[in-house]
């Protein structure tokens, strides 16, 4: 069972033309497009039962609360959590990672402790730890990557020490596309008593994730990359871990009782959900999970693998002079293909592609240290999802040849 050929009909945005050309959206690693089913779920909330949750005793408030919590249960099942309470809703994965750094890190990480990251982390999984390390006097270390964009695990035993408190790793790299061996890293981390944080921004949308099988202690994901509205996402962790943690933000809803000078905390997960939440967004996230479950994550992964393999082959066969693809071969790669072309700057490439209706990302994709290590200021990234079709890859390959032609003098 694959992805139905009619899938593009579910995505209204894909019907339009841009600069007189059909829209070719190849920037799903940045944010995915949204199917009608998700948009309608959000509209239904606002049109039929918009009310604040966990407060009103009236019918539409009860419905809003029920749908919000139903969305949590869907996400929990989708990620293989033991129960809905293990899912904390956040605005995005960035907030989920910050939550761990603040609420867990501040309590447990002290001077001289170590935080192990990788050289391919997104800024979202670098900067919160830098802030924490500066505040607590901790030391940051990094797992290096090789020239194929694969993590070098040979020295892992030396990188994880008795002082290591946290190992935080991107599951699927948003620049290389590399699928990292999280389970292997987690085993080594746990053997030394460190906790494992996984940045799942690029894995939850694209493959079957089983947070408990993965060996993670914390798993963050972001809704807008998995068909859901902007401003949705969350954090998974085991109940016991969430319970022993301090709160992150203080305010309404996260409390159990409040006096003028102190407060006690609500149960998990609400302890971490201070203030009025994006209820419509969460309900949209629930609808997105329904949509992905109907497709089947195995079918999603197989489709992307086919498109990615096709893209790698097509770019090779097009023989675009000076083109280099970053990252590993198809066996260790998600639906991300970043590349550079000698003598043509990524922004110029992206600009020319735009006139063909093609959306790709040009820049450092929030992985500046990764690009710096490669001696690059920027790269171009094409990324794929359930609605990507081979014809779009063909359009990309042809447009790249045209770009190369335009800048031929510069080569």
């Amino acid at each position, binding site marked *: 069972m694959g992805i139905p050929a009619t899938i593009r009909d579910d995505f209204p945005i894909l019907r339009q033309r841009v600069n007189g050309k059909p829209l070719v959206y190849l920037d799903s690693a940045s944010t995915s497009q949204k199917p009608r089913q998700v948009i309608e779920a959000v509209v239904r909330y606002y049109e039929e039962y918009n009310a604040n949750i966990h407060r009103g005793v009236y019918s539409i408030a009860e419905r809003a609360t029920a749908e919000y919590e139903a969305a949590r249960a869907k996400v929990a099942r989708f990620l293989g959590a033991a129960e809905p309470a293990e899912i904390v809703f956040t605005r995005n994965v960035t907030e989920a990672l910050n939550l761990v750094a603040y609420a867990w890190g501040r309590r447990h990480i002290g001077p001289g402790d170590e935080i192990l990251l990788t050289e391919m982390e997104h800024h979202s999984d670098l900067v919160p730890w830098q802030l924490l390390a500066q505040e607590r006097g901790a030391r940051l270390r990094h797992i290096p990557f090789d020239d194929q964009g694969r993590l070098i695990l040979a020295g892992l035993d030396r990188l994880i020490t008795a002082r290591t408190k946290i190992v935080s790793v991107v599951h699927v790299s948003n620049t290389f596309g590399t699928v990292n061996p999280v389970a292997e890293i987690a085993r080594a981390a746990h053997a030394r008593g460190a906790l494992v944080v996984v940045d799942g921004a690029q894995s939850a949308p694209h493959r079957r994730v089983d947070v408990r099988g993965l060996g993670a202690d914390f798993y963050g994901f972001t809704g807008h990359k998995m068909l859901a509205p902007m401003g949705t996402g969350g954090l998974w962790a085991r109940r016991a871990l969430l319970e022993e943690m301090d709160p992150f933000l203080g305010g309404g809803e996260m409390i159990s009782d409040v006096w003028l000078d102190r407060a006690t905390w609500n149960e998990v997960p609400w302890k971490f959900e201070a203030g009025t939440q994006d209820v419509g967004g969460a309900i949209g996230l629930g609808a997105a999970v329904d949509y992905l479950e109907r497709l089947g994550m195995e079918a999603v992964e197989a489709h992307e693998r086919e498109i990615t393999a096709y893209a790698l082959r097509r770019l090779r066969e097009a023989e675009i002079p000076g083109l280099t693809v970053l990252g590993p071969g198809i066996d260790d790669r998600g639906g991300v293909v970043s590349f550079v072309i000698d003598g043509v700057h990524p922004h110029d490439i992206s600009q020319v592609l735009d006139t063909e209706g093609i959306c790709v990302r040009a820049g*450092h994709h929030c992985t500046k240290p990764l690009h710096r290590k490669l001696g690059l200021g920027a790269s171009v990234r094409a990324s794929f999802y359930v609605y990507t079709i081979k014809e779009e890859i063909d359009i990309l390959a042809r447009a790249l040849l045209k770009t190369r032609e335009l*800048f031929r003098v510069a080569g």
Partner: protein
Amino acid sequence: MSLDDLYRDVILDHYSHPRNKGTVEGATVTREGANPLCGDEIRLSLVVRDGVVQDVRFDGKGCSISQASASMMTERIKGRGVQEAGRLIAAFKAMMRGEAAGEEMGDLEALQGVRKFPVRVKCATLGWLTLEGALEEAAR
């Protein structure tokens, strides 16, 4: 929007054959500029003496617009008075805002097309803003 408005021949020519590329020996002032959003970088080195830009070179990496604009700029200001260069900077910035330049722009007019691509305006002005900073430093 047509690509030809952006990638005029003179721009592509300066991109592939940059003028005054490198570093001036015995520079009296050097200055770096960067566009953090897209990673364009420009390094200017100048010899400013007796109120005249005696020599200027640029180095850096970035897109065709940022590099060509810097190349054209060095060609234009080399050997010119500091005051004249200052007027040209103002005129270039005005042109990129869509206002009257009030100066003879010559080849630089080719960069007007960039205005139709708002995110690229910063690329075109990078070298000029770096020059502005360098001349201020030289005046101190």
